[in-house]
């Protein structure tokens, strides 16, 4: 795995999460972050929630061993989290910046209401990946799932990018893709039957601009998980909302 190292900061710490509540664990993580310790390793994590919540600082690298509990990296802005295992529901909930790299599978609602930063999942993800994610100016949330995702992918999505690589099971993507979507783009490897699209979404042509963007993300995915996904061998289906303001005619201002 290639992660940018921070040569100026040598400090590292290992925290044993065994039998700790999420409050105890997070308070130890926060103390370490406050002391500018840049490599924090968490051992024996078993379902503790909200790991690294609200940490707004760049240059912190968290390595999680075990099963990361729900809302991993919630509200965080800056840290890079690498999970050696699976993550439960909603990793990256409302995060603004930083990266979450999950070397395993993830539960439902990956990147729930994400505002910026990136999430990479090696395997499969559950339902409602990228629900409510949103972009603003330079903040462009990005989710890359190596396996497949279940139904309601990009539900109510208002911005950002989702890439589904479908590595092991082509066309196993769920349906209701992009239901209620009004911004952002979803790229899915392979063909997607029309009945799986949510209302008010449309397939668009995969153009050069998309190619540049997605190829870079596939390269990054390959680097993190030591995979050899061949971008050139994949035909992507690009899904966009029909309208950026689907409800503009529904309400009148006067």
């Amino acid at each position: 795995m290639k992660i940018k190292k921070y040569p100026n900061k040598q400090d590292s710490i290992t925290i044993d999460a065994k039998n700790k509540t999420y409050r105890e664990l997070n308070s130890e993580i926060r103390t370490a972050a406050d002391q500018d310790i840049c490599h924090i390793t968490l051992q024996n994590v078993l379902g503790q929630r909200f790991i690294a919540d609200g940490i707004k600082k760049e240059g912190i690298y968290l390595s999680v061993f075990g099963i990361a509990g729900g809302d991993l990296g919630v509200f965080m802005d800056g840290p890079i989290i690498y999970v050696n295992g699976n993550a439960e529901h909603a990793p990256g909930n409302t995060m603004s910046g930083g990266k979450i790299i999950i070397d395993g599978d993830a539960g439902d609602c990956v990147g729930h209401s994400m505002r910026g930063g990136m999430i990479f999942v090696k395997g499969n993800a559950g339902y409602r990946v990228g629900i409510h994610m949103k972009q603003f100016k330079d903040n462009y949330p990005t989710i890359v799932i190596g396996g497949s995702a279940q139904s309601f992918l990009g539900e109510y999505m208002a911005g950002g990018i989702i890439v589904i690589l479908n590595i092991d099971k082509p066309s196993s993507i769920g349906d209701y893709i992009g239901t209620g979507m009004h911004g952002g783009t979803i790229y899915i490897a392979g063909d997607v039957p029309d009945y799986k699209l949510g209302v008010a979404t449309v397939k668009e042509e995969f153009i050069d601009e998309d190619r540049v963007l997605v190829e870079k993300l596939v390269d990054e995915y390959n680097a993190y998980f030591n995979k050899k996904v061949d971008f050139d061998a994949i035909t992507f289906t690009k899904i966009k909302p029909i309208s950026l303001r689907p409800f503009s005619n529904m309400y009148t201002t006067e």
Partner: protein
Amino acid sequence: MCGIIGMLNKDGKRIDGSSIKKGLSLMNERGNGQGAGYAAYGIYPEFKDHYALHVFLDNMKEAKFNVEQEIERWGYIVYSEEIPTTDKGIFEDEKIPYRYFFKPDPRKLLGRDYNEKDAIVEMVMRINSQKNGALVFSSGKNMGIFKASGWPNDVAEFYKINQYKGYMWLGHNRYPTNTPGWWGGAHPFGLLDWGVVHNGEITSYGTNKRYVESFGYNCSMLTDTEVVTYLFDLLVRKHKLPLRLAGMALAPMFWKDIERMPEQKRQLHAALRLTYSSAAMNGPFAIVVANTCGFVALTDRIKLRPLVIGKKGKAVYVSSEEAAIRAMEPLLDSIYSPPAGDPIVHQLEVQTL
């Protein structure tokens, strides 16, 4: 919220309750201390031909007298005792958990159009709807439910569940939302050998309740999960549907999906939807329903509640969270989340226990 957990040893091997307690306690955030409980199968081998009635008594005088008078109208009690507890005085509105090992008397059922199990259902419904200070919360053979208003760990210690050995366990950690937290409202719910744990809410409760009431069931526990128990009793025990089909009837496929199915399958699913439209459950839910033979785990059709299944050798685990399963068994052979609305059935592979 709410946390659910279950485990089944398909080879019938019995284990004590310490493992399920560990798994359930890991999900403390899913509850608020207003209800927790366990269902254990295979715990009363010495009374395996008798119905084990677990009853909450308000007092040891009238309530006990009333319930015994009712039970003896239907059969005879071979043994009864207070369920052994370690009372630490930590619970509010404490009830007295009492148990009766009971056998229906065919002579007392004479002239009534009942088979034995119908008689038990009728008896339980009568006791629970009469507001006489007694509530039957478990009525199966060789199984028992242990529940109270408290945290998973406290409830487990209160009932000393590590002294029981079962081949299948269910656990539930409650976060009451729409209805009060009280002893009777804690999960699991039971009737005969059914044990039900549920996370979510049944928004179709009104329709479902009227439906089961038309078949003689009474909803008396002030919570939506109770109706799931009676729906399974009706569909599986009385209408003889296999567990998986019953699950499909309660969380039916959408018409748009039914239309795309091959003809035979389409007919089956259309028939289930039409026949059981009043039994279909709406709203967000993940449930595990067990009987003596095994369990079925099911979520609502659009996956508004989580459910994870893990396997290790002959053991199958089910829970709201992967971590809870790994707290019980760290080295699993496999773990996955079943698709929404797909009933997952696991049953014992041995006949005799």
